[in-house]
């Protein structure tokens, strides 16, 4: 064996290493054996075109962003202070009691309450952790919907217990056995909404941070939502995980710095139709883009008296989006 030329010895050994399953290694001279040590490392190399494709993709994104920035004179700060880029907007029957629930269950802080003369609520905001929930009493124009929300809290057990005391119905208590890897429980509030109460385990928040309150949409044909939302709202999908038959098991969607999660409605996980308030750099431009992509216009862009450029659309999957661009304090 060792009398074969070195190139031949090397290839016999490489062929044995690359075989599936690997075959026993033939004998080789010492100098050839040293070369084999490189083979494992070489098998881990990325595909040669991958690096170039990713670079092109990043450059395209950069140039798109620059073109977008150059084309707009909109303010850089497009959302209100102390407000995340995205907030679920709950429309419920009995909004005052819903506020009480959010305060008691999730240690919320009521920030704004705009009542109707009859005591029902036109608009309210409750801060929870680093996020905000908006709400109001349901009406003919915007009827009640049952939404699902992912709540990240320091102690899921504590929050879950508080939620039950505040009137929530248990679905299951927080467990380390949840497939997400987080400590995770689920409860339904007295208003029909589902709360996934979780504490991250082994997670180091990155530069993008994370929100205490993250909308979670259970959709029909969620796989079709992804190309739609990317085209309509300039979203980017990360962490898409599909079943073998193409159903979305979980995906994280980023829009203008906001994050939400989607999956395919199935079994007991009922389809949700949500209301979401989304701050974007340019409401007019995004509204036009969304409608072109197939969203239904509910309310074209207008300047709201509270200093925001606003518009409302509904996507083909049943989510209503309140788009907004904060115009600054001088616009009030």
């Amino acid at each position, binding site marked *: 064996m060792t009398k074969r030329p070195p190139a031949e010895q090397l290839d016999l050994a490489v062929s044995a290493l690359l075989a599936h399953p690997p075959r026993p290694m033939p004998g080789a001279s010492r100098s050839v054996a040293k070369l084999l040590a490189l083979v494992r490392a070489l098998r881990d190399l990325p595909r040669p075109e*991958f690096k170039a494709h990713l*670079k092109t993709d990043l450059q395209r994104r950069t140039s798109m962003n620059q073109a977008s920035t150059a084309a707009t004179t909109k303010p850089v700060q497009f959302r209100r202070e102390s407000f995340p880029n995205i907030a679920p907007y709950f429309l419920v029957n009995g909004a005052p009691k819903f506020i009480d629930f959010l305060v008691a269950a999730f240690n919320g802080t009521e920030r704004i309450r705009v009542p109707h003369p009859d005591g029902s609520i036109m608009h309210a905001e409750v801060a929870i952790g680093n996020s905000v929930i908006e709400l109001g009493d349901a009406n003919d124009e915007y009827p009640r919907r049952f939404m699902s929300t992912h709540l990240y809290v320091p102690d899921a057990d504590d929050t879950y217990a508080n939620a039950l005391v505040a009137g929530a119905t248990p679905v299951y208590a927080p467990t380390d056995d949840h*497939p997400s890897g987080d400590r995770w429980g689920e409860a339904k509030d007295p208003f029909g909404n589902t709360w996934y109460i979780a504490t991250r385990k082994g997670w180091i928040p990155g*530069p*993008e941070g994370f929100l205490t309150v993250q909308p979670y949409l259970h959709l029909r044909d969620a796989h079709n939502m992804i190309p739609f939302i990317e085209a309509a709202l300039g979203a980017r999908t990360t962490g898409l995980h599909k079943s073998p038959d193409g159903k979305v098991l979980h995906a994280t969607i980023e829009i203008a710095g906001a994050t939400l999660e989607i999956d395919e409605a199935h079994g007991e996980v009922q389809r949700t139709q949500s209301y979401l308030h989304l701050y974007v750099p340019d409401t007019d431009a995004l509204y036009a883009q969304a409608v072109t992509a197939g969203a239904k216009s509910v309310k074209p862009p207008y300047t709201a008296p509270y200093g925001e450029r606003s518009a409302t659309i509904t996507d083909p999957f049943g989510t209503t989006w309140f788009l907004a661009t904060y115009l600054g304090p001088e616009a009030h």
Partner: protein
Amino acid sequence: MAVRRPGRKTSSQGADEHLLVEAAQSNPSKFAALYELHFARVYFFIVSRVHDRSTAEDLTSEVFHKALANLSTYEWRGTPFVAWLFRIASNAIADQYKRANREQRGDDNALDPSAEANSTSKEMESVERHAFLFRLVEKLPEVQRRVVCERFIEERSIKEIAQRLSKTEGAVKQLQFRALQTLREQMGERHD
């Protein structure tokens, strides 16, 4: 024989990198320089944990997209920029672990993100060594580079490569041998 080894960053390299980061923050089109500098490190950091090329490529893509999107939030505090990228990568790997577990509960072989988030200096040396090897492969003569890629990444047979390159099988084996000899010499004695 001159032994080239992946070097540690000096303070002057750190200062240069700081300038690259600042340039990219004020003009994102200059992010390409940071990408070129750190692509291999990030990729090998990830592949050493997920042990699958396709997954590693997806996560590497995710890391650089996130880094570009969040570059304005990065604050220079003297630590290498790549540490920030590794942190994003750790989160992406942990997310991947969670997604995988959604489908396959209780997989004993699944990655434990809490165990993988912290990296030892030995692991970092391994990442640097692999990144160095990747750059050496990029610098091989074109025909040798093609043989290496087709043989070890695409796992083609010698016969198939010979047909694709219009060469004899013996010539391809020689190219494979020479390429590995060159890489071995340039890597020195420091490889697994």
